[in-house]
């Protein structure tokens, strides 16, 4: 036997074959089945706190404008904006507006993309979803939505290496990154080792700076309950 470290390194050289498409499809089917089971379990808990704003004019108003006028220039009508890299991002067609609606449990939010409302609040008060009018109400679908989740930093691991670059949120270190042109994610630390993860679907049309400005307006409250797993 060669030296033990050489032997261990050689173990790593024995790679198995790439998976067949059947195996890939089976892995996907297994994941989707697990997701369906999770939705069934969570559905009851979440539905109790789903806030359907839709046509409820004035219920959760943004910038004090009547709801009917908020449809102009919202993410739903904004042009699709996807970062593909290599070209300068187009100027944002959506702006942040002061938020005067119901605050999500465990958080305080000062501004949201214009027209967005609190769509879903997780019952364990560690996550919420902001969405434009007419967005689907699937709690597991984040397309076109803004998702905010707080987690223990110890659960996330070395979050300060996540994403592509460092930015500043609340005067502290934060990380931001875009994945394959689908969504931009931003992580920033708050008190007691808690990390807040903000994910904005690119079709919303927010620039990175707007996402940072949004995050600057997000704080946690003592009602926050961290999720695990």
């Amino acid at each position, binding site marked *: *036997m*060669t030296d*033990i*470290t050489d*032997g*261990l*390194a*050689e*173990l*790593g050289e*024995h*790679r*198995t*074959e*790439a*998976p067949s498409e059947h*195996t*890939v*499809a089976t*892995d*996907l089917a*297994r*994941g*989707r089945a*697990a*997701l369906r089971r*999770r939705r069934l379990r969570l559905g009851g808990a979440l539905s109790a706190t789903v806030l359907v704003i839709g046509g409820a004019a004035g219920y959760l108003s943004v910038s004090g404008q009547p709801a009917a006028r908020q449809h102009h220039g919202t993410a739903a009508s904004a042009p699709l904006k996807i970062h593909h890299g290599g070209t300068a991002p187009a100027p944002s067609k959506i702006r942040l507006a002061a938020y005067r609606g119901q605050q999500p449990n465990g958080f305080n939010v000062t501004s949201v993309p214009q027209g967005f409302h609190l769509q879903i609040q997780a019952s364990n008060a560690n996550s919420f979803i902001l969405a434009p009018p007419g967005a689907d109400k699937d709690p*597991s679908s*984040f*397309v076109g939505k803004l*998702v905010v*989740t707080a987690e223990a930093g*110890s659960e996330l*691991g*070395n979050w300060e*290496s*996540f*994403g592509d670059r460092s930015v500043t949120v609340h005067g502290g270190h934060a990380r931001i*990154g*875009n*994945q*394959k042109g*689908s*969504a*931009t*994610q931003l992580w920033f630390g708050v008190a007691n080792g808690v990390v807040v*993860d903000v*994910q904005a679907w690119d079709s919303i049309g927010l620039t990175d700076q707007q996402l940072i400005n949004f995050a600057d307006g997000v704080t946690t409250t003592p009602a926050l309950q961290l999720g695990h797993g």
Partner: protein
Amino acid sequence: MTTARDEEFKDFVRRQRAALLSTATIMTGGDPHLAEDLVQVCLTKLYLAWPRIRSMKLDAYARRVLVNALIDEKRGLFRKREQAWAEVPDRPDRPDHDGDRYGLLEALGQLAPGMRAAVVLRYVEGLNVQETADALRCSTGTVKSQASRGLARLRELVSDPHHSWQGDKP
């Protein structure tokens, strides 16, 4: 309907499944069936967490999930060890042409799961101390001590010509 999550997940599986299975096989001491189970558990957890983790360093996150799956599995096996068996369970065949590799895999299987994971990530996967600590969610000092003790134990096991590989798995 195929979603963006599905397409990204399938890309990840195509790129990383073989590496995950290889790592899992080594971490299980050469048990291909348990390794496949661990990889399936790992991939399912990744799919569930995909919207949250898509922008992370997925390879590192996957390794962490795999280690957790291994440790969870070993906890289960610890309970199962108390069961009585009417017949000796099947064991993988030991290929004669690859004795050193097989012996080393079996020796790895003798280590406690956390120590084994530290040794595999450091010396098989080639991660540095910080990367291993991130994967195991422990301090760099713990990684150093676990990996060092793990190597020492492996040297004892592979150099002992009288050691029974069928013996005292934890």
